[in-house]
């Protein structure tokens, strides 16, 4: 009877954090007030927790402002850059919403932006890690099992890939290819698989020398069974750990690329882009740069905890 070991605390903490983020970005937008269209004139750069009045007018316009007063039959809408006076009769609906995390410089609700951006950031990192996992596994396994020549060629190829200045390659490729999430996934995936390939090759080579594998092979066990019984359990742990840590790195890489203006068009609010947008107004408002930055950190920490936890397993 094997005693059940307790799961490492880091793994639990990281998984719970990741689960929380996933729930928030998947379910969050549903519970939010249907986002008011941005109204930069009246509601740019409002601090977290501001109550906003949303006015829908007869002519189809929507005004969003924290300062709405009614004087007689006039509705006065104040903003940092303008002031409008509207007859009360032309206001078709009026409701009050709270902007939990404030607004950015275009008057967009930061919480909503971050929830939508989180989907993109997480999805790009996850798919990028998947690409790097597939390529890394394929190259690493072929190098370990394909014989001396294939091994030498593939491993020198890995050396060459590592010698490329990754960021430069990303800059130039981003110029060649259409900017978009798919491009980013492929680029991030194809520039990050080398470590995994080396890891897999090393693991397979070291397992192959172990006596139980020798015994299994000599006794005529079919190759697929040798793989599933002996190789896979040995490779699984290190690979899972590597992928978890890589996910965090890819989130950071995507943020860095977006910050440098190479990732995605500005209309797609990933967390990196939000930070870079927030930097422009950092002297006036702390929240547009700080909050997405903390969100990135939280996600990366969750992945790091999971990675470290898998190692302790």
């Amino acid at each position, binding site marked *: 009877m094997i005693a059940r070991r307790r799961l490492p605390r880091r793994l639990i903490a990281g998984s719970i954090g990741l689960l929380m983020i996933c729930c928030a970005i998947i379910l969050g937008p549903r519970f939010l007030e249907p986002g008011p269209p941005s109204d930069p004139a009246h509601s740019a750069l409002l601090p977290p927790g501001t109550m906003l009045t949303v006015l829908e007018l007869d002519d189809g316009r929507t005004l969003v402002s924290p300062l709405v007063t009614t004087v007689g039959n006039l509705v006065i809408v104040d903003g940092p850059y303008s002031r409008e006076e509207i007859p009360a009769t032309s206001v078709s609906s009026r409701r009050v919403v709270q902007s939990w995390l404030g607004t950015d410089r275009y008057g967009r609700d930061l919480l909503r932006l971050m929830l939508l951006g989180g989907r993109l950031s997480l999805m790009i990192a996850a798919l990028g890690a998947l690409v790097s996992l597939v390529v890394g596994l394929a190259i690493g396994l072929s190098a370990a099992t394909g014989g001396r020549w294939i091994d030498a060629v593939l491993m*020198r190829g890995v*050396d*060459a890939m*590592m*010698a*490329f*200045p990754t*960021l*430069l*390659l990303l*800059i*130039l*490729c981003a*110029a*060649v290819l259409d900017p978009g999430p798919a491009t980013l996934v492929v680029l991030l995936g194809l520039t990050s698989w080398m470590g995994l390939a080396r890891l897999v090759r090393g693991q397979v080579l070291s397992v192959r020398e172990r006596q139980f594998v020798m015994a299994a092979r000599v006794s005529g066990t079919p190759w697929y069974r040798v793989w599933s019984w002996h190789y896979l359990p040995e490779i699984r742990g290190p690979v899972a750990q590597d992928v978890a840590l890589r996910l*965090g790195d890819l989130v*950071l890489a995507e*943020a*860095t690329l977006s*910050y*440098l203006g190479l990732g995605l068009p500005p209309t797609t609010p990933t967390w*990196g882009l939000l*930070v*870079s947008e927030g*930097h422009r107004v*950092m*002297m006036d408002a702390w929240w547009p*740069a*700080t909050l997405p*930055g*903390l969100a*990135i*950190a*939280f*996600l*990366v*920490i969750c992945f*790091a*905890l999971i990675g*470290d936890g898998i190692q302790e397993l």
Partner: protein
Amino acid sequence: MTRIVLRRLAVIPLLLWVVATVTFAVVQAAPGTYADTIDNPRLTPAARLHIKTLYGLDQGSFDQYLQWLGALVQGDLGRSFLFKQPVTDVITTALPATMLLAGTALVMDLILRILLALISARRPGSWVDRVLTVLSLGVYGLPSFWLAGLAILFFSLKLSWLPASHMASVGADGWSLGARWVDFIRHLILPASILGIVGAASTARYLRASLLDVRKSPHILAARARGLSEKRILWVHTLRPALGPLVTLIGLSLPILVGGSVVVETIFSWPGMGRVMWQAAVARDIPVVMGCTLIGALAVIIGSLVADLLYAWADPRVRPQ
């Protein structure tokens, strides 16, 4: 051993050629040439065309590649379009700047990393350990551009303690040598701290884990049985074996010492390799892009060779028979 090293040295030219060729192809495939990126509204289309022919950018990609390769074989890296000087000059001015920044950052990284790991590993699970672990994980998770922006905001703009960009103040050329050094160090502090702290925060936990591993080994028990002080056990008997894998760092950090950090150098306008490379890539300055790529690739290849050699030197178990 010597044969393995020689074999790996022999493939270096081949690797460099592959890297250079692929990079050249990618630069050529990127839309626009240097002539198109010049941001001058008074430049007429005819003048743009003239610049294009002047730099040989109107020729076919393959011809340009052959010319570049031919010059390279003769040891000539070409002239930069953007900086109007030979690529070797561009690199020899940028390289010392990057080495100073990255070198300072590396020293800070090492000291901080060892300190963090030692303090954490003294009493694993104590509140000091937990606070340090959470703090360093937090710093590791934050993007470095975010930290750099925050540092500039606080220390340069709000408190005006430290300068936010470049290596020297305007007009520092006329100052005395001492004043220039102080000025340089003041400029160095922010970018080097960002790089050093981020580096230490992202790796201290690995050193902590290996310290804890070493603590379980029998020689620590033996040292304790001999009545050595806890301090001596920690600093000498635990730290030294745990530092073994760290020698590979000397090799692995060579690329950073040579290539610099694009993000931090760009944010702090530090005139090093990372920033030069970024400017050259944006301006499609092919000779500089290629020169930086070659130097960077060489650093990676030599660095990983040195790392493997040092690792084999430090740990006899991985030495090939």
